């Protein structure tokens, strides 16, 4: 691809310059051919043809003109393409910069709340007279530290996911989902509730997928944890799995209040908190982690949600099934 420069532009005119020089040389050193009557009756082409016949020097001149013309067209297109690429790169840079600023703004918000709580707790620890007040301050400080630790852990997970290779092994999805349900039992939001796990009996055995089992458990668990957190005890939470021969579909569905329309497209962004999630505890990185994990497995994740009847939210994960003849191996 040609770059925009005066040197390049001058080079483009070289063929024309060569043609002009050849024309001059022919005219200087050769005798003109006998006159030949071709008139403008035949239009421009007749004139050019006549000129050519009368003076052979016109041939390199026209050739030079033609080549220079072609080169100018190519040069112009090349410059335009470069400008478009440059614009795309700048747009991407601007977007990345905006994303970075947005991330820092959100991070600032996520840190300042527990830190403020921690500072207040320290003051209370210092000034409180009664033991019960001091104990409460210690408890609050511990809680703030836990929140900060969780944020840091999730940030580290996100950063690790981009750096370390994932393990690729055969994963039994129904077994994995059972593990998720068992693990969810410890969640405070699980208390007094049930998570329905629906696994089809046919085909049997259920097709395997290829992936990092631990990461996939984390992804589905995060969805289940969200479903439990953002719904009340009267709502249902369901995990279901299906297959279509090429992929396995895992759905985590709830009959909760639903996600506001303006939030749906942003919920997978790092540290994004939807309008109904601001008062709920969490690092704000759970869904970003899910998105990253599913991406690393060549899968897709979609969400559909409605705040009107029939209300609820459904996250759908699509993961390719293991191809026949797959050999167990780590990804690196």
């Amino acid at each position, binding site marked *: 691809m040609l770059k925009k420069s005066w040197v390049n532009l001058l080079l483009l005119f070289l063929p024309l310059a060569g043609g002009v020089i050849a024309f001059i040389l022919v005219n200087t050193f050769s005798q003109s051919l006998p006159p030949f009557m071709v008139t403008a009756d035949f239009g421009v082409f007749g004139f050019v043809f006549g000129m050519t016949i009368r003076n052979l020097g016109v041939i390199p001149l026209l050739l030079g003109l033609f080549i220079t013309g072609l080169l100018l067209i190519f040069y112009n297109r090349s410059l335009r393409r470069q400008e478009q690429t440059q614009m795309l790169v700048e747009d991407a840079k601007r977007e990345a910069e905006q994303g970075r600023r947005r991330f820092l703004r959100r991070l600032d918000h996520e840190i300042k709340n527990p830190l403020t709580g921690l500072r207040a707790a320290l003051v209370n620890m210092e000034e409180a007279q009664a033991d019960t007040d001091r104990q409460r301050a210690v408890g609050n400080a511990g809680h703030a530290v836990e929140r900060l630790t969780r944020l840091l852990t999730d940030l580290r997970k996100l950063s690790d996911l981009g750096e370390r290779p994932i393990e690729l092994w055969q994963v039994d999805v129904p077994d994995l989902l059972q593990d998720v349900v068992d693990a969810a039992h410890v969640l405070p939001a699980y208390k007094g509730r049930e998570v329905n796990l629906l696994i089809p009996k046919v085909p049997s055995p259920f097709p395997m997928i290829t992936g990092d089992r631990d990461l996939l458990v984390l992804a589905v668990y995060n969805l289940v944890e969200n479903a439990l957190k953002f719904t009340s005890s009267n709502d249902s939470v369901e995990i279901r799995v299906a297959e279509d021969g090429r992929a396995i579909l895992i759905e985590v569905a709830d009959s909760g209040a639903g996600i506001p329309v303006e939030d749906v497209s942003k919920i997978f962004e790092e540290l994004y908190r939807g309008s109904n999630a601001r008062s709920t505890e969490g690092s704000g990185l759970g869904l970003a982690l899910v998105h990253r994990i599913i991406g690393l497995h060549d899968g897709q994740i979609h969400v559909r949600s409605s705040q009107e009847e029939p209300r609820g939210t459904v996250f759908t994960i699509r993961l390719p099934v293991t191809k026949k003849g797959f050999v167990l191996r*780590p990804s690196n």
Partner: protein
Amino acid sequence: MSSNRSTLLLADDDPTIADSLAPFLERAGFHVLVVSDGVSAFEKAQAHHPELIILDVLMPRMDGRETLRRLRKAKIWTPTILLTQVGEASERALALEEGADDYLNKPFDPHELLARIRAVLRRVRPGERSLSAAWLLTADNLSLDRRARRATLAGETVELTPKALAVLEYLMTHPDEAVTRERLLEAVWGWEYPAGTRTVDTRMAELRRALDDDPADPRFIETIPGEGYRFIAPVHGEG
């Protein structure tokens, strides 16, 4: 009074951490020397012969990894805990070259550090090179080549996932020590998992199957109910 107590050398350039950890460790019965950079840590380790060294990684003048490498080069085998993460395979290979006896990732609970210190002091024989620095570990007819990332049982290669191999490696470098599931998660997986304990148990089942180790009558890995696991066969290190 301090002569009866084990001496620890704590090297961390963050005064908030050093000032809080030192009194905590003193209360736990240790005599604590505090330094804030790698060069001072190296000098103090040579001059005072502490029983254990706790090294932060990012420090001025000389970082923790370099300090440890120099200590080992000078044949100073004082057990050392490095305050960093050692989850990844590449990190583990690096850790081997460093020869740290254990790792703890910030932020950590001071009680966890105390547990690590006690476990390392129990495990390591003073003046001897620890198993953490050995390339080849053998226990009965099981051997683990840490460089080649391969385990063999009675000369036959054992087919293991990388995670299960890392679990085996951790257990073999911490023989006769009760290792909790949480500790395994942190050391092998690098970060906690929601289905954490189950995750560990799944890998442990895989490991036992591969090693043909009966949980009811174990040769290698014993389950400690409500606590975790213990590698019971005596381990020898080479290289």
